[in-house]
Every structure is written in structure tokens, then in C-alpha cells.
């Protein structure tokens, strides 16, 4: 029993690690989409952030400098998206696709130019990474039944960005639902003309939203390459940005349900790691591909509205035009 419990805690801990970039990205997307800007470019910003973090961490030796660079790079892409979608009323999806492709090209091109290692960064050593933090007394309490493993295995021993991701959820809730800024941001995604007539600039609100999106995606990227991973490899975002977007939709653009959606996708991934090659009772060995495509299949089923339909913000993807 305790064995199984410890196992469960370990799987959940792995889930948490795998869900962290999803949580950051989904919260990022929430700000942008709640303000009316579709962000299919989460993937690109994530990748760019991952690259910038690893590159700068490797060059400076500091993961914090890497984190700063990731945020900077990701915000820069977010601003490009804003420039196209907010200022020039471009198609949000086209712009997002452009950013994803741009990021997957730029990371490799700059990577090769900087490190001539085929687009990867050098592996980061310990000092250049965010390291796991063992919470106080984790070792002491580990043997206490039930709660001990919960604390020692699940909660303790993650790097600071995992905790930051967990903090990002209530923080996003507060910003979106308990501040004037959040109120107006949400209104900009529902009825921008109402915000405008109330005397607030829709453009500036949306820009601030995409900047927040950039910041959060940057952190997610830094997590991928300097906390969870130990360096950048090409295409290391591997569709996580899209999955985060799916989680956002699945979570109906609300922080807590979105968190759970991210964790669900995280569980699928972590069990994929553990189930590979393992023969289960009854079903036998599950082909790894089945587990790997499960999140995508699940997303399609969710989108089809079989688990309740998600109603997006009304003005999502609609450029705000005052004068035709």
C-alpha cells in the first residue's frame, strides 16, 4: 500500500514537472485570449524562450540571466504578434503560425551561429541550471505514512520554476478577476467597444496582455531548457504550446480548470514515460504511440464539445476597428 502510494506520489511529481511548461503557457495564453488576441504562437514563444535561456545561461553561467533573456526574447515575439494583430489588424492565426515557424528557424540559425553545434546549445552544468530545491524537513518526514511521501516525493524536490508555475495560477486568477486591470482586459476580449467607450484604450490593454503572455511563455521556455532540461535542443518545445492552448480551451479560459487540464496532459505524458515497455495486466503492453497521441485525440474530443462546449471570449480574434 505505502509502496503504491509512494509510486503514485512519484508519478504525480513527474506529472508536475511535465505540466509546468503547459501551465505557464496556458496561463500565458489566457491573458492574451481573454483580451481578444488569439495566440497560436505560444509554441514559438516557448521555443524561443527555451533557446534564449539556454544560450544566455551557457554564455553567462547564470540561469537567472538565462531566464531574463528568455523573457526578453519571448516578449519580443509577443510584440511582433501584437504589432501584426493589434496595430495592423492582421489575422491572428496567420501571425501565430508565422511566429511558430520563425521561432523554429531562428533558434537553430542563431544557435548554429553562436555555438556551431548543429543548433543545440552546449549542455549546461549544474551552476547554469535551476536546481531542485529540497523543502525543509523533507528527509525527516519522508517516513510518516501517507503525508510523508506526499510532502517529500510530490511537493519537495522541484526547482523554483515548478513552484512558480503553481503560484502563477492563483496569481492569474487574482489579476484577471480581482483587479481593475483584469476586468478591463477581460472586457477587451468580450466587448472592446465597451472598454473604449469607458475611456480606456483597447489597443494598450491588448498590448499589455500580449506582453504578459510573452513573459509567461519566456519563463516556460527557460524551464524547458534550464530547469527541466539541461540545454537547448532543436524543436524542444515539441508541440507543448499547442497542448497548452488545448488545455486553455479545455479549461474554458478559466485558471483553475485550465490548471487541471494541464495536469491531465501531464499525467498522460508522465505515464507514457513509465508505461513504455511495461506490460500491464489485462491490456498488456500499450503501444507507446497510443499514449503519445492520446493528448491530441483527447483535445479533438474535447473540442467537439462532448464534454461541454467551451465558449470563447466573444471578441476573440476580432480586430477592434473604430472607424471603417
Amino acid at each position: 500500500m505505502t509502496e503504491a502510494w509512494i509510486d503514485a506520489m512519484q508519478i504525480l511529481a513527474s506529472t508536475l514537472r511535465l505540466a509546468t511548461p503547459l501551465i505557464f503557457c496556458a496561463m500565458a495564453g489566457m491573458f492574451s485570449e481573454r483580451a481578444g488576441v488569439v495566440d497560436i504562437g505560444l509554441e514559438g514563444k516557448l521555443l524561443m524562450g527555451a533557446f534564449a535561456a539556454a544560450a544566455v545561461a551557457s554564455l553567462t553561467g547564470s540561469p537567472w540571466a538565462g531566464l531574463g533573456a528568455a523573457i526578453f526574447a519571448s516578449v519580443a515575439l509577443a510584440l511582433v504578434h501584437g504589432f501584426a494583430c493589434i496595430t495592423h489588424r492582421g489575422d491572428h492565426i496567420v501571425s501565430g503560425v508565422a511566429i511558430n515557424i520563425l521561432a523554429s528557424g531562428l533558434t537553430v540559425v542563431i544557435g548554429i551561429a553562436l555555438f556551431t553545434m548543429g543548433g543545440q546549445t552546449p549542455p549546461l552544468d549544474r551552476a547554469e541550471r535551476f536546481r531542485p530545491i529540497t523543502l525543509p524537513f523533507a528527509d525527516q518526514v519522508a517516513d510518516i505514512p501517507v503525508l510523508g511521501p506526499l510532502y517529500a516525493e510530490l511537493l519537495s524536490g522541484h526547482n523554483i520554476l515548478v513552484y512558480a508555475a503553481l503560484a502563477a495560477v492563483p496569481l492569474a486568477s487574482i489579476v484577471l478577476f480581482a483587479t481593475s486591470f483584469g476586468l478591463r482586459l477581460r472586457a477587451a476580449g468580450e466587448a472592446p467597444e465597451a472598454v473604449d467607450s469607458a475611456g480606456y484604450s483597447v489597443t494598450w490593454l491588448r498590448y499589455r496582455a500580449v506582453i504578459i503572455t510573452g513573459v509567461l511563455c519566456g519563463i516556460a521556455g527557460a524551464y524547458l531548457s534550464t530547469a527541466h532540461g539541461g540545454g537547448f535542443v532543436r524543436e524542444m518545445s515539441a508541440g507543448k504550446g499547442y497542448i497548452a492552448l488545448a488545455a486553455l480551451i479545455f479549461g474554458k479560459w478559466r485558471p483553475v480548470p485550465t490548471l487541471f487540464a494541464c495536469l491531465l496532459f501531464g499525467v498522460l505524458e508522465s505515464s507514457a514515460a513509465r508505461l513504455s515497455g511495461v506490460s500491464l495486466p489485462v491490456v498488456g503492453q500499450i503501444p507507446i504511440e497510443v499514449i503519445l497521441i492520446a493528448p491530441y485525440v483527447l483535445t479533438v474530443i474535447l473540442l467537439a464539445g462532448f464534454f461541454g462546449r467551451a465558449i470563447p471570449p466573444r471578441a476573440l480574434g476580432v480586430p477592434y476597428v473604430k472607424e471603417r
Partner: protein
Amino acid sequence: QDFKPAVVFDMGGKFDKSFNEGVWNGVKRFMDETGVEVMEFEVTNETQREQAITRMAQRGADLVLGVGFAQADAIDKVAQDYPDTKFAIIDVYWLDQPNLRQYRFEEHEGSYLAGVAAALASESGTVGFVGGMDVPLIRKFACGYVQGVMDTKADATVLQNMTGTTPSAWNDPTKGAELAQSQIDRGADVVYHAAGGTGLGVIRQVADSGKLAIGVDSDQESVAPGSVLTSMLKRVDNAAYDTMMDAMNGEFTPGIVSLGLEEDGVGIVENEANAELLTPEIREAVEAAKAKIISGEIEVHNYEDDQACPS
């Protein structure tokens, strides 16, 4: 200078600290010693291989070295198109072209030694193996490793995971780290990888958890100093170096070249750097096993012979 050799690295990249990098080290040694320029290309996509190899031949390469079994088809085809160019490929033994040399390594033998070392270094009695792409070649590693462990410690447990089924499995360190962590969670305290770039994540995660890793292909001590018990060497550097030298000196021969323990084509790292981890007892046991394998007293099962692993 007239001699123009070329090398086409595969997915994982020439700095994977592992397989491709091993080849690169051999190529570098060749360049340093002879001053000859070697053209190179890194494949990042399945569809590039044939074009890259063709392009090398087209650009007048005298020898094109392909790295890895994935290039087998492409090199087979181009070798026919360019009968005057010499070709070589590593980890392939099933082709038949008059201008092609193929290198085959007895990885199961080296892995057996890694298994012996792992079994002796493990305190928990559970050791792990993380493979890259799930292909017979990597099963061959796993199979030899398991045999080495079990022969040494009959009650040991060996945990095994493969990273994936496509070439991208060679280059997913984060996944490697998660797999290693899951093995550590299940009690493993020595983890051997045969996963190319993915293995970097394995070693890092193992080191972070204070356990021991066994590297592969090249000496991977430098990835996590103090945490790498040893590395299973696969002297692809020698293969690369020899091919180029032979081709330059007009001694190129087609056919299959097999490299095992006896030829020093495989082995494990025993040097100053891992003196503390790889204790004299372990070294002794490893040496003994090596002698027995060479003498034929121990027969290490080769997965590729029957696509099966007796367990």
C-alpha cells in the same frame, strides 16, 4: 591536396557527446594528422540523407562516410549511382556494394562488461537501462547489459526503457531525464544509457539524484564529472579514422569490418578519472569477464542473431 573525404552525421548531431561525436573525434584526429579538409553535413530530417550523400559525391568526395544504420538505404542507392566513389557506413552489415565498407560493432560484448560493472557498483540491486530509438541495435545493447548484470548478481533487477521509435528519440534529453528519474524512483542506482543525445539528459538526471550513470560510445565522464561510473566505448572514432586513412592511402577495402572486445572495438572506460568509482574489485571482475568473452568461455548473446533476448 587531392583527397576529399566527406562525412554525413545523423540525427543527434555531431556534438551529441556520444555516437556522432565519437565519429567526429575520429574525423578530427584524421584532419589534425593529415591536414586534409573533411566535408561534413548534419542530417536533421529523414528526407535529407539521400540528398546529402548524393551532394557529397557530386561535389567530388573520394570517400563518403555515413554515420548510423539509418543511412543504409541512401548510401546503398548512391553507391550504385557513383561507382567510382568510395563509401563507408557504421552500424550496417547487410549491404553489398563493391565500393562500400560496413562497420559492425559487437556492442553486446561491451555492454556485458557495463552490466558487470553496474551490478557490482549497485547497492540497491536494481539497475537501469535507457535506450534511444527502439531498434534491434539498441536491444542488442540492452540484452548484453542484462546478461552481464545477471551473470554477476543473479537476484538483481534490471529496469529498461526505450525513448521512442523514431530517430527523434536520439535527441530528447528531457525525456531521457524523465525516464531516468522514473527508474531511480523505482530503485535503480546505476543507469546505463544507449541513447545518443538523449543520454545527456539521462546522465544529468542520474547525477542530480546522486546516483551513478554509465555512458556510451565515447567517454562521457565530462558530462557529469564524478557521477559517471564508466562508459561503454564503441570506437567509432577508430572506424572513421581508419576508413579515411585507408581511403587516402589507397588501402580501402569493401566488405564488413567487425569490431569486438578482441579488436578493442568495444570496451569500457577504466582510467584515472573514474578510479574512485570503478573500484579495483570491479575492474578485476570486468577484466576477468573480458578475458572469458574473448576466450569464448562466456558467450554473450547477440540480439541481432535471432531478434530475441533470453532472459
